[in-house]
């Protein structure tokens, strides 16, 4: 099945404030979208709406294909070793964790609570990539990463899109990727 993601006329309200309205896009297999905008404009909320975790105030999202989400919470058990924590998700997804790409092989015996910010982010990326979902939602994927890791993530997303996947990247930082559509969320603030 080829993945597809269509969002039409999305509006998001947090409390009594309308964050954005009328956001729409259609992504086909191989497309990448960069959600850009300053802090607080609603990038994370839009990501959560697309993931189906937050109800939009208006509009709807049609999605064909499984979704993998990466946000600021790695969803790895703090009290477990990294190997066990990644192993849990690998067993849930029925896949094998890819620890080599992100240089995590030496950290597998370390409890997650001892990992640094960047190491947590790399672990979360490994968890997300291991899910094998065709649609990737990346919320600030470059936060806390060093330059080498940034290059690895950019190459990984490029490979994912070349293989027919869809990627949405919400980031206030530049993200180097060819043929990426850019959506300035600030333009949709009422």
């Amino acid at each position, binding site marked *: 099945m080829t993945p597809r993601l269509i969002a039409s006329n999305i509006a998001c309200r947090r409390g009594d404030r309308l964050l954005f309205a009328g956001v729409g896009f259609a992504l086909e297999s191989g497309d990448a979208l960069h959600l850009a905008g300053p802090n607080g404009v609603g990038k994370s909320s839009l990501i*959560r709406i697309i993931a189906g*975790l937050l109800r939009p105030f208006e509009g709807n999202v049609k999605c064909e294909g*499984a979704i993998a*989400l990466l946000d600021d919470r*790695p*969803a790895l058990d*703090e*009290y477990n070793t990294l190997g066990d924590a990644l192993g849990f998700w690998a067993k849930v997804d029925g896949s094998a964790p890819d620890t080599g790409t992100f240089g995590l092989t030496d950290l597998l015996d370390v409890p997650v609570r001892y990992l640094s910010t960047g190491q947590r982010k790399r672990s979360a990326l490994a968890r997300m990539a291991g*899910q094998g979902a065709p649609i990737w939602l990346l919320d600030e994927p470059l936060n806390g990463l060093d330059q080498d890791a940034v290059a690895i993530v950019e190459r990984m997303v490029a490979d994912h899109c070349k293989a027919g996947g869809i990627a949405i990247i919400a980031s206030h930082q530049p993200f180097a990727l060819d043929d990426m559509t850019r959506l300035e969320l600030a333009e949709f603030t009422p």
Partner: protein
Amino acid sequence: MNGALWQIFKRDVAMLMPGGKRGGSLLPLLFFLAVAMLFPFAVGPEPALLAKTGGGVVWIAALLAALLPLDRLVAHDLEGGVLDQFALRGISDEAAMASRLVAHWLGFGPPLILAAFPAAALLGLDGPTLHFLLLGLLAGTPGLAAIGLMIAALTASFRSVTALAGLMLVPLAVPILIFGAGSLPTANYSGIALTAAISLVLVAIAPFAAGAAIRAAREG
């Protein structure tokens, strides 16, 4: 999908069993035994008085011991994004909560039932009282686990909720306490049956109530 749910259940059990990696789950058991140990010191060692009141004290100890694991039950996974990841994989919040309900009961129900033996010895309870106490705990602890799960899910997005959880548990647990402890002096099975009936209703609604609470917490 069933395989995924089985993995989630195994994680829940590993997390909530006494001596589990998250730690602290021995606390309900030790608290329960501590109450049974301290009560004779507080009211005096007369066997007649202890035999009359001991069963009720064990019930109150069990009820309060059920409160102790609540802060770890749901909040960590909600904050850590684990429940969001389950939802993305098509595992409903209700299914995740049903798994956690069973794991939570396994973590505190059977240990408390076993600990009722030394507690009964400490309080000098006789054979028939112990018999009804064990049956009552077996019938009542699933209901206490269900109440605990619902409260844990409802308060998961708040900070420092232990006191609030205690206040919320008390009125909900009163029916279980009345029929469970009430069957001790009269020594009949109807009280046990009513306790089991209340437990069944609570166990049936708990996954749905907890799932709805988690969805509401996501929107907030």
